């Protein structure tokens, strides 16, 4: 009798482990809208931080799955042939930008965004791409980005 219960118990454990393994294996990236930002910054501020101290600032913004919210002025809007948007935030007189590859799930939210709009974008921080050519500016890059709506007071 004891042996029977033991076997059933073992079977339940094995099935639970298999279910967990299956779920973990197929886990998709969490929706950026549901995630809290680890940092909330301005586009000009974070660009200045990296320009002045790239190594130290990279350490500050290091880690996998770091979510950052950036407020800035839209200086360019790119849309590719598949309808995927990239927004560039920052000062239009500066070649450098915060480059936000937008989450394709929320493309409809972007149709009303215009150049010169001031917006907050939240997304996964992928790093600082320093310009080695001296021609195009150094950018902060983020992906899976969403527009962050102002919080209700």
């Amino acid at each position, binding site marked *: 009798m004891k042996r029977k219960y033991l076997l059933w118990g073992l079977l339940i454990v094995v099935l639970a482990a298999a279910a967990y393994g299956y779920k973990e*294996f197929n886990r998709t990236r969490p929706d950026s809208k549901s995630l809290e930002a680890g940092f909330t910054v301005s586009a000009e501020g974070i660009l200045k931080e990296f320009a002045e101290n790239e190594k130290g600032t990279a350490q500050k913004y290091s880690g996998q799955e770091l979510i950052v919210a950036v407020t800035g002025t839209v200086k360019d809007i*790119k849309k*590719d042939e598949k309808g995927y948007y*990239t927004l560039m935030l920052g000062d239009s007189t500066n070649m450098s930008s915060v*480059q936000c590859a937008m989450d394709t799930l929320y493309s409809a939210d972007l149709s009303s965004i215009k150049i010169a709009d001031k917006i907050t974008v939240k997304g996964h921080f*992928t790093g600082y*791409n320093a310009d080695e050519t001296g021609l195009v500016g150094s950018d902060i890059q983020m992906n899976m980005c969403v527009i962050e709506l102002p919080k209700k007071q």
Partner: protein
Amino acid sequence: MKQKVFSLLLATVFLSTGLLAQGKFFTKTGKVYFNCTGGIEPIEGTNKSTTCVLDSKSGAIQFSMLMKGFEFEKQLMMEHFNENYVETEKFPKATFVGQIANNSEINYAKDGTYPAKVKGKLTIHGETRDVEAPGKITVKGGKIIATSDFKVQLSDYKVGIPSIVKDKISNDVKINVDLLLDPLKG
């Protein structure tokens, strides 16, 4: 008077065409796709934030991308890619510095598609190797579309594949580059 205006107009057209032909082109939203599927499950990722500068006069071409910028279908695959395989905290960037070897055969002033041979140095995971790849340069409406398909080996860039997944991940990586380049002003 009419002849002077016509000559001025003609000179402007030729001058601006010449400037375009000698100019630099760039993108910050270039796409790089890789696939190293060894088994049933696709092992692939796409980076949509590749920066590229092309000098149409000299044929010099340079691109860079942040490895964390690669997007995957599954979160676990992305985590393994960043933490275990390409170690993005230690080696955040991949770069290519090279030359279009047959640049003189490409007419940047005339719309059309031209075969290109690209040679240069590719750096991934802190390792630099010489690569050669075929590509295409399409000139259209003042912009350039540059594409290339080529293969590299993970072992050349010291990216190890644990024996437990050797049948799932191929050492041969297929890479596709797709860049829409705008004229660089100034």
